[in-house]
């Protein structure tokens, strides 16, 4: 009778415990702790890789971005003026990544351009209704843990991300997304079966600028240092590039504006008093 009372009290306590305070049963999840460092080229279409499956309209946008770079411009890659890279570009893992798993949310933390993070909700929720979300560069992610081999331990996190804010590109080469903002990103995140210090992120993008879904697998290696160095990257700290309107300028060593393109005119100085002129 006394044992039943103790068990009943313990069960009641468990049921009354808010979901957020449940501890993670680490035996059920893959070990994703530590610092993850990118392996390989971060670009989605580096030399030798298949070309992006863009529609003719958006191939023209990409070509224009490349032409702008060839002329000295930044090619409409929004992070050049310190906008967050968002999804999926942040999963190019330009700077090291940390993954924090809790029962209800998995957090992905990366400091690149700015301190950026993702929340992947694994609490069984559905997509939010109008008024229950705002668009963000990282998007709204819902995930589901999968036990592929039935051994009682999850080995894959399937994620879908929607509700993304524009502008974004896939990488620094300027591959564009459709301006309708209806990108959907699906991922399968898992440890390598032969080496659990290698992480794979199979990313598939659905976007109206594409002729078909586009899949690529990103890879990261776990830093073996037990206490790795975590840098913070603040783009605005010492960005050499300056945006005025839609034009890019480059700072000189002394902090003055310089042109990036041949024959680029100076910015409009109509609100500055020029020598010998009266202010309007």
């Amino acid at each position, binding site marked *: 009778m006394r044992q039943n009372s103790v068990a009943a009290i313990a069960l009641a306590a468990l049921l009354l415990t808010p979901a957020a305070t449940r501890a993670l049963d680490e035996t059920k999840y893959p070990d994703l702790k530590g610092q993850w*460092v990118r392996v390989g080229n971060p670009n989605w279409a580096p030399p030798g890789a298949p070309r992006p499956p863009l529609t003719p309209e958006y191939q023209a946008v990409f070509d224009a971005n490349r032409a702008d770079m060839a002329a000295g411009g930044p090619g409409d890659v929004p992070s050049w003026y310190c906008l967050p890279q968002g999804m999926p570009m942040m999963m190019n893992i330009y700077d090291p990544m940390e993954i924090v798993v809790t029962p209800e949310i998995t957090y992905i933390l990366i400091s690149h351009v700015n301190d950026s993070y993702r929340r992947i909700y694994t609490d069984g929720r559905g997509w939010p209704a109008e008024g229950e979300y705002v668009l963000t560069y990282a998007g709204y992610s819902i995930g589901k843990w999968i036990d592929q081999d039935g051994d009682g331990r999850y080995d894959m996190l399937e994620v879908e991300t929607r509700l993304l804010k524009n502008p974004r590109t896939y990488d*620094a080469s300027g591959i564009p997304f459709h301006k309708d903002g209806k990108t959907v990103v699906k991922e399968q995140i898992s440890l390598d079966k032969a080496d659990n210090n290698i992480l794979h992120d199979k990313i598939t993008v659905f976007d109206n600028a594409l002729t078909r879904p586009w899949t690529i697998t990103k890879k990261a290696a776990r830093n073996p*240092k037990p206490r790795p160095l975590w840098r913070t990257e603040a783009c605005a700290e010492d960005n050499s590039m300056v945006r005025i309107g839609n034009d890019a300028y480059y700072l000189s*060593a002394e902090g003055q504006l*310089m042109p990036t393109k041949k024959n680029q005119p100076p910015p409009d100085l109509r609100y500055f008093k020029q020598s010998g002129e009266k202010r309007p």
Partner: protein
Amino acid sequence: MKLAALLVSGALAVTSGAALAHHSFAMFDQDNPIELEGTVHEFKFTSPHSFILLRVKDQDGSVTVWNLEAGSPTALSREGWTAKTLKAGDEVRLTVEPLRSGAPGGAWNVNKIKYKDGGPIAVTH
């Protein structure tokens, strides 16, 4: 090769400036690089990118300070660079991909810089 060695050597990450950026290094003239020789005015090991401010003596004897950009501290540290790898007064020679406008700015990478006497830059591997 052990994982740790791969990470330290940078072999696991492409360190080309074109691939590691919040902007593309394709905006610099990669087809027409130039050689610069000068004195380090300041080495900025900062975000988002590291910079060498290089005092270069022009042919007429005047001095121009070039603003030269490389990868982030994360990228450079993989090659053994630290905030103390270069200091004001160091004399260096480097290959630069210049701004297409001709203004005194451009991009460099750790594989294309040496001391003026030809010696390699001392890193901490």
